[in-house]
């Protein structure tokens, strides 16, 4: 299959384009306007999900009732976990000391070296 280079047929056009010179000047404040358009286009981009979440949290915490509820819930969660872990630790320790006492008085349960 014979292929032809399209530029071979555009030889006259190429010559005209080579001779073309732009002589008109840029409109005033062209550069500034270009940057403004770029900024406007970037501002229209959809926000990332993290930004949306942060914005939502920020809006939520502007309501004093919600902020107070958040702090109160966290305080009670801390107190609850502290109480639960203290109970657990106490039960473990008591069990250990009970066993130690029994071992110290019962020769049949005393630890052997």
């Amino acid at each position, binding site marked *: 299959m014979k292929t032809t280079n399209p530029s071979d047929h555009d030889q006259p056009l190429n010559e005209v384009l080579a001779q073309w010179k732009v002589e008109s000047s840029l409109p005033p404040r062209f550069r500034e306007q270009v940057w403004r358009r770029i900024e406007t286009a970037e501002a229209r981009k959809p926000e990332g999900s993290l930004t949306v979440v942060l914005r939502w949290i920020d809006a939520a*915490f502007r309501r004093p009732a919600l902020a107070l509820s*958040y702090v109160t819930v*966290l305080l*009670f969660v*801390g107190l609850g976990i502290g109480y639960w872990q203290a109970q657990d630790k*106490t039960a473990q*320790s008591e069990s250990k000391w009970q066993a130690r006492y029994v071992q110290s008085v019962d020769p*049949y349960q005393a630890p052997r070296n």
Partner: protein
Amino acid sequence: MKRTWLIIIGGLVLAAVGYACIYLHGTSAQRSVEHSSRPELAWLQKEYRLSDAQYAQVMELHNAYAPKCEEMCRMIDAKNAQLQKLLAATNVVTPEINQALVEAAGIRAECESAMLDHFYKVAQSMPPEQGRRYLDWVQSQTLRPSKMMLGGATTNASPRMP
């Protein structure tokens, strides 16, 4: 946004402070027991609400009983070793094994008697209600048949098949 971060971090700090306060308060008694020189006896004082005088008496009784307990441990170990040796040497119940079993039972009776005597003395140095509670608990931990089976009368010897 700065205010929001302040609330978020403030809430977390408050939770941590609440946790620490409750945990440290809830485990303070355990920590004091743990740091005492005789934690098992300090636990006894805390559990049975002994006064300092009662605790001193319990400690004295405990210290007096400890050498007897160690001596009983030695007797039990010696008898068990003898029994194991006899059991390993035969596959029938010999008069020597019978004798060793009788002696092991005698040692057990002697140990239990000494333990009970000690428990009664300790209970008498406690307030009456606490003494009863102590006796119930300590007897359930030491003189119950299931607990008595845990002791040194068990051997590693397995029956030899002919």
